[in-house]
């Protein structure tokens, strides 16, 4: 659709609804603010930084966005010590060594030109993301786990969208990817990176949205059951737990209940209590939510 981009700039309102619908079609129920954030990403060409507790569906946003754009999702998982050779590019040493052996006797310059060419270059996620014909979604997951050197390097890439490889020269982006960064907040990110990005805080969904998420994801979950599950999960989140259940846990639990043929939570409090292991993942939490607590929580769910 060639005229699509112009339309996007002219009619942001309509576009936001379209975005929300497109995300919903790929299984992600977005709130209005997130849809705005995604329309801003396209307009301002800035990366989007998603922050929030573990398990609120930050990574899902990127997956749904890729599906909505009908494009590829390129994911870079960060960890301490992540460096250029695993994030950006690496030379294919085995092939290089073979080529050197095969061309034994040639001039050193000629061999060097040959083995340091595109053919022997292994793309890693960041380089791959800027060399696609159709802009992909680049997900830089858990950026707070990488160290600050990598953050600084990333900042440079995100502002210029070009990479210089000493042996090859500068590679400029063919297309600018849609960049999504996620952070769990285990480490404070640098102010420079934060300023470069749009910011969105992903919170636990409210009851209504969580019920819609369950209905969208779990086939066979009816509207009333989904609402009951969402309400119960919300009240469990308010208990003092060590690990608060995320959306993924809710979905697991809903799937378990549907699989056990539960139609109404009040009909089978036994099963409800026994399947709570889908939500409570530490021994401490498990022993805190006793049978009585489950019943009290169930009582609150209308």
């Amino acid at each position, binding site marked *: 659709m060639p005229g699509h981009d112009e339309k996007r*700039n*002219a*009619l*942001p*309102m309509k576009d936001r609804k379209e975005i929300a619908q497109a995300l919903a079609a790929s299984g992600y129920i977005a709130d*209005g*603010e997130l849809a*705005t*954030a995604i329309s*801003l990403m396209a*307009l*301002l060409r*800035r990366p*989007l930084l998603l*922050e929030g507790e573990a398990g609120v569906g930050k990574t899902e946003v990127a997956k749904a966005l890729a599906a909505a754009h009908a494009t590829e999702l390129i994911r870079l998982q960060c960890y*301490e*010590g992540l*460096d250029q*050779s695993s994030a950006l590019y*690496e*030379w294919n*040493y085995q092939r*290089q*060594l073979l080529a*050197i*052996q095969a061309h*034994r006797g040639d001039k*050193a310059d000629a*061999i*060097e030109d040959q*083995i*340091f060419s595109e053919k022997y270059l292994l793309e890693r996620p960041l380089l791959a993301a800027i060399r696609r014909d159709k802009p992909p979604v680049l997900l830089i997951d858990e950026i707070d786990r990488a*160290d*600050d*050197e990598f953050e600084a390097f990333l900042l440079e890439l995100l502002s210029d969208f070009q990479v210089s490889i000493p*042996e090859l020269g500068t590679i400029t982006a063919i297309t600018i990817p849609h960049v999504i960064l996620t952070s769990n*907040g*285990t*480490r*404070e990110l*640098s*102010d420079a990176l*934060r*300023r470069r*990005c*749009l*910011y*969105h*805080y992903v919170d636990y969904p409210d009851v209504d949205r969580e019920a819609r998420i369950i209905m969208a994801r779990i086939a066979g979950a009816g509207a009333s059951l989904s609402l009951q599950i969402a309400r119960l999960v919300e009240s469990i989140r308010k208990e003092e737990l060590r690990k608060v259940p995320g959306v993924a846990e809710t979905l697991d639990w809903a799937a378990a209940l549907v699989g056990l043929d539960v139609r109404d939570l009040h009909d089978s409090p036994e099963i409800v209590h026994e399947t709570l292991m889908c939500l409570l993942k530490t021994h401490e939490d498990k022993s805190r939510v006793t049978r009585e607590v489950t019943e009290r929580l169930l009582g609150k769910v209308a």
Partner: protein
Amino acid sequence: MSCCGASPDYEEIDEVSRLVSAKLAAFLKTLRDNAYAVGLHEGRDAAALIAAGYAETPGLLRVAFKHLFSARKSDWDRFDGLFDAFWLGRRVKSRSITTGSAKPANNPSLKSLQDSQSERAGNEAATDQIPSADEAPGDRSGEGRMEGASRADNLAEVDFRKLADPDQIEQAHAAAARLARIMRTRLTRRDLARRRGYRLDLRRTIHSNISHGGVPISLVKRQRKEKPLRLIMLLDASGSMSMYTGVFLRFIHGVLDEFREAEAFLFHTRLAYVSDAMKEKDPARALDRLSIMAQGAGGGTRIGESLQTFNRWHAARVIHSRSCVMIVSDGYETGDAALLGREMAALARRCRRIVWLNPMMAWQGYAPEAAGIKAALPHIDLYAPANTLKSLAELEPYLADL
């Protein structure tokens, strides 16, 4: 446009856009005053958003600006209130204003500004100079507490002067030097190319052996990169700590000298940055500068507020990923203990380790009952007693593990 009947002339449009951009600039300034990191680039993007039709309704503009200007959760949570207050004229329930309290006092640029002003005034009437010089300390004590300000001189004389005792300085330096040696470097998981190392660097090896026909003769290896540990000291100089302030000041002096990277702060009801003052070559001058900064020392302790000042104004600059923060305090908080808890959590996210040294712990029968220390405890990595240089030396093995 069509609803107005006649199309507006260009001057009118210019006038409107001028008004909008002036208002936008004022909004950006408000955000900056509230500690948002907003640069020129953000301003340009904000104007682009308005031009793209995001200003259609206040709700839409608020959401769009919220994503653009916020950089962290605290910004995110406060934004709606600020936006409504500025654009819609609604009251903000709790607007968090943090003053950079200690800053104007030791900010040379501000000082020189004052001086030049008073000089200009002095040309007209020479007596003007004296009241204007008096005014500055008056302002400062207004910020702190009256009784605290009066005790400050006393503390400065008793404790800070002892810094000049050469024997004790030597001891303090020796302790700090030992500490510096064991805490100096931490290995990172980041590699550097080296001649000797534990892992082959294939890329560089192949590149440098092309002339040998690809036979790897000279090897390039990778070694773990070392990064110096940075020690940041926050010393409580309140009345309840007055017995120990001298000891720790000497220790800080040693730390600043011996560590490759170290910073020091003093706090009581406010926070003061003292690294520069303590690095002064001339000891007498250093003492003078310290005594000026110790104004208000000996009064109550507002650890929470001091930490808030630290987190907001200094943390981004002085803390990097290999930083250890050492807080020396008895944990008697006269301010809000809940605030202390929040600020400790924020600090814990930023730095690698937090050590809290508490002189009171050496007393018999001490239990962490004070509200302040209770709120802070969950975020502390090492909580240990320390009241003399000797007890500091005994902590070495624990500090080395950090």
